[in-house]
């Protein structure tokens, strides 16, 4: 009897089929075929930050090194020039300005000597804007023969004579002189360096003169001082920045005897040696007839170079201050849904949402106030509106449509009402949107790169003021539902504020007209906090990649 009883149960249940959740396969599929797409959400921000940091590092290194490492001796000279250029900028007048840091006695004599030594021959009617005099008064023991001009190595400055050099510089500046005393470790000689650097605004020529007061005992000249060089400052607004976009070439090199009466040697084929940053003068020796200098006690070397009509664009000096930026940005948003727990229902819900929602083109609009400091550091604050767009696609296989047919007689009275249902599938394609209004707070760095372009890097946070989500999704019960708060019976899954998100961008600015720039910034924004409520089983974050394009106006 027991067997009969058992058989009844077995026969009833052995082949019985029970319904199972439609989301179960998604959960199983996720376990046995793990996906890697969420990694991109972490790789992108990390890669972006790495690139940004690397760019800034290379940037600073390049501009610093390019100014300081080309020639050690130019270190001091550049400092002097930069200092004077600042003064020149502040006092930008059309009149001829002379910065003579030598003693008054020397100043008169040197300028007089310059004029006598033939500057007029190459540059007529020159208005002297700068004349930095570096007097080479090194003694020649007659044994080494090689003459080195402007040698005050950076190593010397760093290792032992920095304090002394600075003290000397400070003192001499105060005394209106640039005489720099430096005892070289290798020669024990004392060098007083004299250099004349002239910019002629009218003829667009820059003349560099190096006055050598000592004789040469050999048929070679060793110079370690570049004729021209860029500023060693990282600021983009240094007047010292030479207009390097020009094709620099020398028009003339003249070597004269100590009286300035006789042109000993001249050459014009300096193109090979004058590169973007101008190689040291020793490269010139092959172009000069050194033999003729053998018994010359003192001579001047002139190199005449073409420069811009003004050696610094006027708008560069106007970059400091307050700006207003207006921008728009097409963006692509990547959604990251992560389960708060590993139970099957939550994982299945996550999978269902990932399968039914896809990204669409998003955008941001906004305005920012920007304060740019002289060092190139910028501070930005403003207002930003972002809208992340997605598409919800879902085929509901069990949709029921109810039709009601009402028969009405001639008098308008209802005769009968017939209701019938139609079952089938219904396709839902809903545009979902995640809107947010934020205050961007950014810090940045801008670098003038020459010509009319600047580069920038920005990073900071977006503080959310309010946010709104509209659309449809598969809710945790497995049914489609609205999450729009204005809909009836909506499923409340999202917060009214999405908190803080992180922003970074690299930009390029084109200085269009005076006071107005156009900029483009590839940007990345990472929503650090989940948009979803604590009660909702999934965390929902976004990463957006965009291209901020806009215009900025200087007040």
């Amino acid at each position, binding site marked *: *009897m*027991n067997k*009969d*009883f*058992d058989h*009844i*149960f*077995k026969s*009833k*249940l*052995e*082949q*019985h*089929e*029970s*319904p*199972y*959740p439609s989301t*179960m*396969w998604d*959960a*199983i*599929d996720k*376990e*046995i*075929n793990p996906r890697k797409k969420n990694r991109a959400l972490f790789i992108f921000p990390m890669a972006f930050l790495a690139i940004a940091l690397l760019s800034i590092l290379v940037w600073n290194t390049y501009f610093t090194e390019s100014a300081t490492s080309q020639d050690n001796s130019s270190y001091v000279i550049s400092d002097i020039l930069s200092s004077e250029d600042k003064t020149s900028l502040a006092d930008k007048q059309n009149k001829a300005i002379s910065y003579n840091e030598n003693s008054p006695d020397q100043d008169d004599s040197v300028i007089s000597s310059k004029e006598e030594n033939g500057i007029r021959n190459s540059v007529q009617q020159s208005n002297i804007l700068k004349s930095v005099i570096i007097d080479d008064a090194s003694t020649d023991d007659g044994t080494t023969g090689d003459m080195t001009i402007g040698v005050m190595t950076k190593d010397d400055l760093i290792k032992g004579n920095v304090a002394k050099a600075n003290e000397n510089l400070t003192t001499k500046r105060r005394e209106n002189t640039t005489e720099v005393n430096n005892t070289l470790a290798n020669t024990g000689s004392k060098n007083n360096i004299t250099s004349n650097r002239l910019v002629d605004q009218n003829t667009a020529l820059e003349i560099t003169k190096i006055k050598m007061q000592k004789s040469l005992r050999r048929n070679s000249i060793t110079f370690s001082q570049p004729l021209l060089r860029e500023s060693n400052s990282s600021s983009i607004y240094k007047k010292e920045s030479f207009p390097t976009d020009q094709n620099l070439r020398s028009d003339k090199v003249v070597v004269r005897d100590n009286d300035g009466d006789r042109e000993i040697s001249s050459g014009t084929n300096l193109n090979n040696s004058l590169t973007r940053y101008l190689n040291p003068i020793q490269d010139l020796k092959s172009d000069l007839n050194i033999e003729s200098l053998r018994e010359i006690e003192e001579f001047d070397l002139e190199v005449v170079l073409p420069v811009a009509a003004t050696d610094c664009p006027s708008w560069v000096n106007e970059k400091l201050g307050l700006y207003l930026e207006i921008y728009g940005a097409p963006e692509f948003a990547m959604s990251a849904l992560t389960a708060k727990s590993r*139970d*099957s*229902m939550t994982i299945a819900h996550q999978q269902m949402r990932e399968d039914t929602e896809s990204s669409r083109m998003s955008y941001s609009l906004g305005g920012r106030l920007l304060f740019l400091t002289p060092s190139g550091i910028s501070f930005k604050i403003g207002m930003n509106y972002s809208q992340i767009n997605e598409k919800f696609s879902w085929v509901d296989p069990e949709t029921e449509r109810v039709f009601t047919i009402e028969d009405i007689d001639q008098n308008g009275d209802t005769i009968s009402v017939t209701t019938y249902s139609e079952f089938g599938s219904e396709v839902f394609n809903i545009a979902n949107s995640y809107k947010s209004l934020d205050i961007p707070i950014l810090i940045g760095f801008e670098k003038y790169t020459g010509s009319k372009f600047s580069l920038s890097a920005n990073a900071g946070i977006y503080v959310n003021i309010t946010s709104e989500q509209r659309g449809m999704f598969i809710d945790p019960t497995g049914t489609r539902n609205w999450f729009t708060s204005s809909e009836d019976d909506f499923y409340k899954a999202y917060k009214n504020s999405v908190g803080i998100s992180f922003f970074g961008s690299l930009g390029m600015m084109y200085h269009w007209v005076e006071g107005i720039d156009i900029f483009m910034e590839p940007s990345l924004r990472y929503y650090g906090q989940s948009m979803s409520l604590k009660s909702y089983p999934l965390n929902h974050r976004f990463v957006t990649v965009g291209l901020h394009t806009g215009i900025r106006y200087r007040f």
Partner: protein
Amino acid sequence: MSPLIPDSLNEKDLINGCLKGDRNCQKNLFELLAPKMMTVCRRYARHHLEAQDMMQEGFIKMFINLEKFSHEGSFEGWVRRIMINTALKKVSRKSFKNEEIGIADHYDNSIDETIVAKMSADEVLLMVEELPEGYRLVFNMYVMEGYSHKEIGQELNIGESTSRSQLVKARRILQNKILASQKIAV
């Protein structure tokens, strides 16, 4: 068979496809077996959600260990065994603490078999689901899966006598439920 499965694909083709990592074959195989396996899991689970968890875990094990299937016996039986083993691992040992020894292995057999025959499978399944956990396990293993009391004892780490007593109690409860439904029907 699921509409996604082409007619030319039989169970063996699906298994081979799964072994090659074909996701469509995996899905089709799942859909082929899932309804029956859901019934198996429901018989062992305390509630519907637990049954779903059992089934999901069981299928994951099945796909991961698919290469171990030797093709010698029934594939459905192999999968069913995986489901049962998965279910048994979730069984609480507390279910067998209150065992009673010496209960007579008989019960009131005044059940009209025609009434049981007229009951739907869902009604029968519901009765089994409502059994206390220990009774339900033994009843399922003995009646549905064909285990002996010795095997049940080894599997559940209980004595054979305990297994027998649990089975008797399960039958008695089911008998009472059927009688109750019989009275309602009358």
